[in-house]
Each structure stands twice: as C-alpha cells, then as structure tokens.
C-alpha cells in the first residue's frame, strides 16, 4: 500500500477547487485514500492509497482526476490514441535482450512545464509504479530523459557488462556495468535482476551515446531531468506487457492532465510481442466488462434503477451502455482492474458513497456454538482458577534455546526460515518454557506463584502433511520455597476428577525433572502428559532461585477420552 506525499496546492489546482481537510478526507474515499498527516506550514500532505489494483491512483494527478469526475469537472474525451502515423520517434530492439529483459515501450511528451513540484511528483510516481506495481523493478522499470539530447532511433540491446562504461546518476566517475552493480547503490539494490545473465540491457541513442542501464540506473549526462525541462522521453522495460502498457498509460494521462502533448514512439522488435513486431506506444488498455444489471441489486441488496447506476458510474469515470438486461461498462486506458463484474459493483458503491446504504440484518437463524476443544479448554481453565492458579498468556513464537537447551531437550521444533529476531523464531512445542520464563522474570512478585496456561503448541512430526501438528496443552507451575511433587499431584488429581477422568502417575525420568520425583500421567492407559519437580540444573539455566514443580497435559488427546 503506497503512501505518497503531495502538495495540497498542486492537488487543488488539478481539481480546480479547494477543500478543507475534512472535505478532502471524504473525497479521498473515492480513491481508497487515507489522509495521513500534514507537515504544518509546508502545504505538504501524505496520503495512503489502499487499492493495490489501481496504480493510477498512486499519484496526485490520478487522485485529482477521480475527484474531478465526481465533481462533474472531467469528461472522458482524452484523445491520446488517435493514430496519425507519425513515425518521428522509433526505438529498435535487438534480439540480445530477449532473454534478459525482453519488453520495452516508450513515448514522448512535449510542451510540459516541468517545475519543482511536477518533477518531484513525476519521480514519486515513477518510483511507486516500479516498486509497488512492478515488483521492485522486476517486471517494470521506468526511465525518464530530456528529449533534447537524444537522437532517434534509440537502440535497446544487451551488451557485455565490461564492454561499456558511463557516468551513472549520482556519481562523478565512469563505471562499466559490472562496476555499477558493485559500487552504485542502485546497482547493489537491483543488480540481482540481471546478475545471472552474461549480457546486461543497455539503452543508447542513434549515435551510440548511453541513455541508461535498465532496470538499474540512467546515465547522468543523458538521463537526468531538471526543473525547466519541457520535452521528455519516457521508456519502460520489463517482463509483463500488461504492466508495461498500463504504467506508460498512467504517465501519459498524468502528462496530458498537466497540458503535455503526447507523441507516440514506435518500437521495432526482432521477435513478436503480443503477435506483432512493430508496436506503437501508448497502447490501448481495454478495461471492459459486461454484466447482468440484476447483479447490482443482488450484491447490494436493494432495488436500483439502471439509469441511476449509469449516472453513478459515470461520476466514477466509467462509460456505460445499457441493453435490456445487460450493461457494458468500460473505463479509460489507465485502468486494468476489471477482472469480474463484481468489480464494477464496487465502483458503483464507492461512487454512490457507503453512507448511502442502509445497513440491515440477515434474517437467517442459527444457534451458534464453540468447538468441543474450546469447551474443554474453558473448563480446564475454570478448574485451574478454582484451584488458585493465575492464568498466563504468552507468545507462541519463541526462541529455540528456550525449547531445547534450556529444557535439556533435543526434539526438532517448527522453525521460521526468514527469521527477523532470534526471540521469535520458533513455534513453542510445550507451554513449560513460557511458564519458566515467567518465573525468571517475576522473582519480585510475592510467593507462592501458582500459574498456568492453556494454549496452542506446535509439535514437529514428519508424518503430518505440514510436518507438524497443532495441539492444545495445559501447563501448571508452582514456585515456592517448598514446591513438591505431591502438591502438584493432588492438583492434577483434582483437575482430572472434575473432568470425570481418572489418572495414574507412573514414574519416569525426564530431562527437566529430578529423578524419582517425576512421572507420566496415564488416563485410560494412554500417556496424556507429565509432572515433576524441576531439576536444579534447569532452574539454574533459567536463573530461577525458587524450587518449581510443573505439570503439562495434552488436552487435544484428553478430548478424545471425553
């Protein structure tokens, strides 16, 4: 979800009207935008855009356009795709890029007033499109150049990384492409996109002057746009044709809204792209869907006059045509988000405003209920509280040594691959480490401590489809100067009694317990858990200074006996 920073004045100028912040916040609902904060006095505001399928809204021009439609200040009569067969600008693609980065599209804009604000917005739009829409330049990277320094046709080719060198943006010295990957911040950031290839993409003009090294960095000499420029060359390279043409269209509309004249660029491919070898940009994007008019009523839940639907959609920038039972809806070429008729229903709802829908309750009746496991867990919690235990609630994510070394256990545990911090890198397989951690922290609380937790654990098991199994456990711990097995044993016995079960304890040694003072709990001759006095070596490992006795039960198994 991109957040953009814009000048309020610029926005109001593009809309043709000014608003208070409250009014603006309401209008921003049209673009699923949220007014974040305003830098006092600077006129700069931040807006978070929530629709990842509408990249056209991630810029001040797109936001203004959507609001203009609602205000009736915008018509759909852009004439950006009138073909006049102008072949002033061509771009030649060489076969060498096919494997590396096969697609390129471009256009030229003229007579645009690039001031600081426009430049800043242009760079921001370029960045948001490449990062959020183009998967961090993987499927889309955009380059912008002053038109003046370029002789056409421009050539898009792949070259040996060491064969050419130029001064990249942001640096003073010439580097070859391989050096750029190593030394330039953008090279380090985006180098992985080309690194595995023997040849890297390169954009040069007719005279062989380097424009850029897509998708990494522009040349400082030919690829740096400054305020005051009026004519620009814009190209986009990538791997997905849909993205490419949509991204270029978004820029095309933005420039058009700022008064620029769009001049197409013809791309000549040595290989077919979308079935053709010559493709002129900008390309039309058909965002069109046909639906049964009844769908609106069914999804919204009320009767609606189709004419009103048409009007409301019109105010959202949609073109509609109505037949007897069906409606055809299309948008301008900067949108490509109609996947299903339901998407149009949302456009309608947003345009109409959510406040206009009267909430109503479904008439269906159900008795409702919790799963049996929840009933058991709640019963156990109630008994434990009645026995005087305080309930704990700890994180499921934990650190591996707490589950293994500090418990003297070697069981495999469910580990996270992409660890962020060591403290939260494993799923707990027992509740005991969590309770011992609490003891470690809580030495200042008045003793005795009688604590318990009922919660989920994840037990590693290669036989399971997911390699692990989620179980609900219950663990109890008593910490006091004389914490004994027999005390815990009687609590356990009471707990089982009130569950209607009878437990037998059979002596067994555990890594965590003192020998002869621990055992496993059998219910109906099946092992359901264990209890015992914690061994001093474990207490020492946890830096606990008070004797502890514990008990852990597998409620998921117990449930099967009830």
């Amino acid at each position, binding site marked *: 979800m991109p957040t953009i920073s814009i000048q309020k004045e610029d926005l109001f100028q593009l809309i043709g009207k000014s608003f208070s912040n409250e009014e603006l916040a309401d209008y921003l*609902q049209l673009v*699923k935008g949220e007014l974040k904060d305003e830098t006092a006095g600077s006129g700069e505001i931040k807006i978070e855009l*929530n*629709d*990842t*399928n509408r990249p056209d809204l991630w810029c001040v021009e797109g936001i203004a356009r959507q609001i203009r439609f609602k205000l009736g200040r915008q018509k759909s009569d852009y004439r950006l795709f009138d073909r006049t067969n102008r072949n002033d600008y061509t771009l030649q693609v060489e076969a060498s890029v096919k494997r590396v980065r096969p697609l390129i599209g471009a256009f030229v804009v003229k007579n645009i007033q690039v001031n600081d604000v426009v430049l800043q917005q242009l760079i921001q739009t370029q960045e948001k499109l490449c990062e959020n829409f183009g*998967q961090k330049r993987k*499927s889309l990277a955009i380059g912008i150049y002053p038109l003046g320094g370029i002789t056409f046709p421009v050539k898009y080719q792949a070259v040996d990384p060491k064969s050419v060198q130029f001064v990249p943006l942001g640096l003073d010295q010439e580097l070859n492409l391989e050096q750029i990957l190593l030394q330039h911040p953008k090279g380090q950031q985006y180098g992985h996109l080309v690194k595995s290839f023997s040849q890297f993409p390169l954009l040069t003009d007719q005279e062989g002057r380097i424009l850029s090294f897509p998708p990494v960095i522009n040349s400082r000499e030919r690829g740096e746009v400054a305020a005051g420029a009026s004519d620009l060359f814009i190209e986009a390279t990538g791997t997905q044709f*849909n993205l490419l043409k949509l991204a270029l269209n978004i820029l095309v509309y933005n420039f058009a809204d700022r008064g620029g004249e769009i001049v197409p660029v013809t791309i000549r491919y040595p290989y077919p792209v979308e079935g053709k070898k010559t493709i002129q940009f900008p390309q039309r994007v058909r965002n069109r869907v046909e639906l049964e008019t009844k769908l609106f009523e*069914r*999804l*919204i839940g009320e009767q609606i006059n189709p004419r009103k639907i048409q009007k409301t959609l019109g105010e959202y920038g949609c073109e509609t045509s109505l037949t007897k039972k069906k409606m055809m809806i299309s948008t301008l070429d900067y949108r490509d988000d109609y*996947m*299903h008729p*339901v998407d149009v*229903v*949302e456009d309608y*709802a947003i345009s109409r405003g*959510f406040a206009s*829908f009267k*909430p*109503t*309750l*479904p008439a*269906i009746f*159900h*008795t*409702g*209920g*919790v799963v049996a496991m929840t009933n058991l867990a*709640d019963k156990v919690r109630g008994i434990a*509280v*009645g026995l*005087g*235990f*305080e*309930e*704990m*609630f700890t*994180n*499921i*994510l934990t650190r591996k040594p707490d589950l293994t070394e500090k418990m003297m256990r070697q069981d*495999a545990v*469910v*580990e*996270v*691959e*992409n660890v*962020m911090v060591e*403290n*939260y890198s494993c799923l707990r397989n027992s509740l005991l480490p*969590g309770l011992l951690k*609490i003891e470690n922290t*809580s030495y200042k*609380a008045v003793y005795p401590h009688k604590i318990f937790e009922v919660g989920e654990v*994840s037990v590693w098991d290669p036989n399971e*489809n*997911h*390699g692990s199994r*989620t179980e609900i456990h219950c663990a109890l711990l008593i910490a006091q100067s004389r914490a004994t097995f027999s005390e815990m044993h009687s609590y356990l016995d009471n707990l089982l009694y009130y569950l209607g079960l009878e437990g037998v304890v059979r002596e067994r040694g555990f890594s965590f317990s003192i020998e002869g003072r621990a055992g496993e709990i059998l219910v109906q001759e099946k092992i359901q858990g264990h209890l015992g006095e914690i061994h001093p070596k474990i207490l020492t490992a946890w830096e606990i200074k008070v004797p502890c006795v514990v008990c852990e039960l597998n409620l998921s198994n117990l449930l099967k006996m009830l």
Partner: protein
Amino acid sequence: MDESKLAEKAMALHPLEIKILLSFGLERAAAQETILNQCGLAEAQFRTALEWLKGKGALQVIEVETEDFVSLTDSGEQYAKNKIPELQILDMIGQGLSDTPLSVQNDPAEPPKTIASLKERSRLSAEEISTAIGNLKRGGVVKIEAGGSLQVQADTNLKKSFNETQQMLVRISQKQRISLKEFSESEKNEIQGGYKKRGTGLFEIETIKRNRLELQQAGVELIKILNETGMDAREETSELTPELLKDGQWQNVKFRKYNIQLKPSRLVVGKFHAYREYLDFLKKRLVALGFEEMQGNLVENEFWNMDALFMPQFHSSREIHDVYFVKNPAAAKSIEEKYLNNVAETHENGGKTGSRGWRYLFDKERSKRLVLRSQGTALSARKLSQSPQIPGKYFAVARCFRYDQVDASHAPDFFQVEGIVLDQNISFRHLLGLLQVFALEIAKTPEMKFVPAYFPFTEPSVEVHMKHEKLGWIELGGAGIFRPEVTIPLGIKVPVIAWGLGIDRMAMVALGINDIRDLFSSDIQFLRDSRIKGIL
C-alpha cells in the same frame, strides 16, 4: 468537654477500661490494689487498660507509700516443703515432733541412730546435717551417746521454736508474699536477722510502691455516661466461635467493634488472564449472534493462506517481508487436488468464475510452501471447502503471525477475529448491518462509518471505522463479499460475506494498557494488577 465528643469517647471505651472505671463505684479515688481486686482483671490486662485511661486523661496514678513484703528463697521454699533440717533429723531418728510423714527414705524397722547412718540415708547435704545436729546438741534436744548413737531428750523450748519456724515457712509459701507488717516481732527478728546461718538464706524482702488512683474530671464524666447509658463491660470477644454458639455463651459476650474503614490488603487469587477474558467475551457475543466456531493449525500452507483467497502469487504481501515461512519441512506433502486445480485455473484465467483471472502462470509447488498462518481468513477458506451449512455463520478467534518488527503496537503473534456468513440472499447491506452490530455490541462505539477498502479476496470491500472516546477514529475491522474467484473454486455457489475484526486495540483499551506486548506480559505482578474495569 463537648457533650457529643464525650459520648463518642464513652462509646470508644474498651471493656477493660469500662471495668476499671466502674470499679470506682462512688469514690473519686482508691488504692490501686483495691481497684485491681474489685475489677477482677489479671494484673497485665489491668496495667494495660490503666495506661489507656491515663492516656485519655480519665485518671491519674499517684505514688503514695512503700511497703516491705516477705517471700521465700528457693531454699526457703524447699524447707517449707520438706521441713527444716533439724526437724527432718528428729523425724528420722523416730522422735519427730510433727505428724507429718517423713519425706526422707525411712526404714521404720530400723531407724538410723548414728550420724554416719543419717548421712547415708538423708537427702540433706553433709554440711546441713552437721549444722543441724550442732544446733540440736546445743539446745539439748539430742545427746550423743557412746558408740555415736543419737538420743533425743525430753521436750525443750528450742524444739518448739523449730516447729514455729517451720510453720512460718509454710505460711509464707502458701501466700507467696506477706507484708512484713503482718509478722510478730520475734518473727520479724528471725526474718530480718536470723536464720541466715544456712548460707543461702531463706527469706527475701521486697519493697513495693503502693499507688493511688485518682479520677480526673473526664473520668468522672465518663463514669456518669456509663451509668446513664447502662453500658456494661460484658466480656468482649474478637470472634464468634463454634464453642460460643454451642454452649450459648454468645449471649454473655460482646463482640469487639472493628475499625471497618481500614483498607484491606489485596489477595493473591486464582484468576483468568484479562486478555483471555476479553477474547472469551468476544466468543460469547459471537455465539450469541448464532456464529459457530472454526479452528485450525498454526502452520498453514500458502494454498489455504493465500491462493484460495485469490491473492496472486506475485502479490507483495506474500513476500518474505510479510509472512513467516517454515524452515523444515518447507512444503506440505500435498494439497487437496480438486481445489488446487480449480484455484490454479482461476488465478490464471478465471476458470469457471466469470473472471479474467490474474493472467499469470500459477505455480502449484508454490502453493505447498508452508507459512505461519498470517490471516484468520485462511480458516474461512478451509471452512468453505468443508461442506459448510448454507445458510451458515462461522467465526474464529485465530492466532496469526506477521513478519513485523515487534514494538509497542506490533506483537509477534496476534489475534484476528474472523467470520463468514453464507446465504443465497446475503448482500452488501447485510454486511453493513452485521458490522454495525459488532461496532455497537462489541466495540460499544457511539459513532461509526464505513470506508471503501481493498482486499484481494473481497469485492466490494469495506472498512469499519469507529470513534473511540480516547483514541479518536480507529479501524475496527475489514470486510467484504468474497469474490466469486474465492467461493466458486471451493464449491460454494452462494454469496459469502466475510469480516475480520482487529481486536488488539480494543482489548488494550479495555485493559487500560498502551503497549501491545503487555497483552502477553510475563511479569506475574503486572498480571496480578491487570484487570478489565467493569463488565464487558
């Protein structure tokens, strides 16, 4: 003194104090001994209560005179019990002057006649025997005949005086302490000067102060009030015991008043965790609304966590910076084949859903990748595939995991409350209706609004914002109608509305905490102090 204050003071009198005050009768002053005897209190209690009354200015203690009291030393006590050595010896040789049976070992068949045999058979020390025989000889009570045998002479005055001494010892021993004034001159002489020859001495003289108690004005007035109000000093007891109930003695006792304004100490008690109480409350509300619970695994595969929810495999929230991936095993063994094929087709070209799909090549291996459940909606997706009831309503309170830096507003694992409603006639307005109920019933907000939102799996999508009195506008949750691309591949042909509530912040408000990590605190003291104020 102010009347009412005096009355208050009278009410506050301890029964011990009352007993002392009432013992004065009509007198304004009396000897301390007299009052002590009169009130019948043990001396320690008496002294304590006296101090209280002094402190209240009810009476004063005046030291008036001193008096000497005689008591016995240990030896004196011993002789009082066993007789003085002279009498013991006379007894042993069979000519005792008293009828008291001998306490020494005695063989009546053959009484000891010689000094040597006396020494052998008496418990007296040799020195005591020598001194005593010396005394007896000197007074002519016994004679030593040839052969060392002892012969008792006829009665002498001295014999009588031994007897008198013995009687005095017994008398003192019985009374413990006797004023010196009560003895005759000869006795006084014997006590003060005589009978010290035995080395240790038999008598002790102790000088005791005699106090006089004198009521002050406050005391007089208190007695007046006591008499007027009839307040008595029935025995006061601190607790009602089963014994008192059993024998009816409760009728004769008075229960001591407590200071009931003291702040009691907090107890350490068994208690539920406050956050769980909050989650329990949520569950209860949802069950009351007719929702049925769903449950699932912490480890989920990408198919159910994302693919089935129509999140394209290139979606940015599926990257390593948003989701925790499982290390080993990294992938599930299998995915339900039928659903996998349906979903794959839907992603690629819309399949049978009427959608154009995401238009990319779906990777079925990617679907098997295991993650820590990142959204509760995964449970809803699974439920859709498990032949749910139609119409049907389901919910889950699901622990979820996101790749987030842990801080005051991000916990490593958190709860999502999810739900779905399936019905042929369910609509967007029903969704808004349910969300409104949640906002009013669960979040208890005075004001709310619906805001357009985006989720890959719902269309239309909506967010509920509610006005919180402290936090201002906050997001309560997201919702929408499941896209046909979600429902149809899982075999559901009716519309499904889905919602998810963010509950952490509401719980934090209910618990009065500012740091989300405190929801999972490991500090017992903190947990003992934590609570939900009032009822939910």
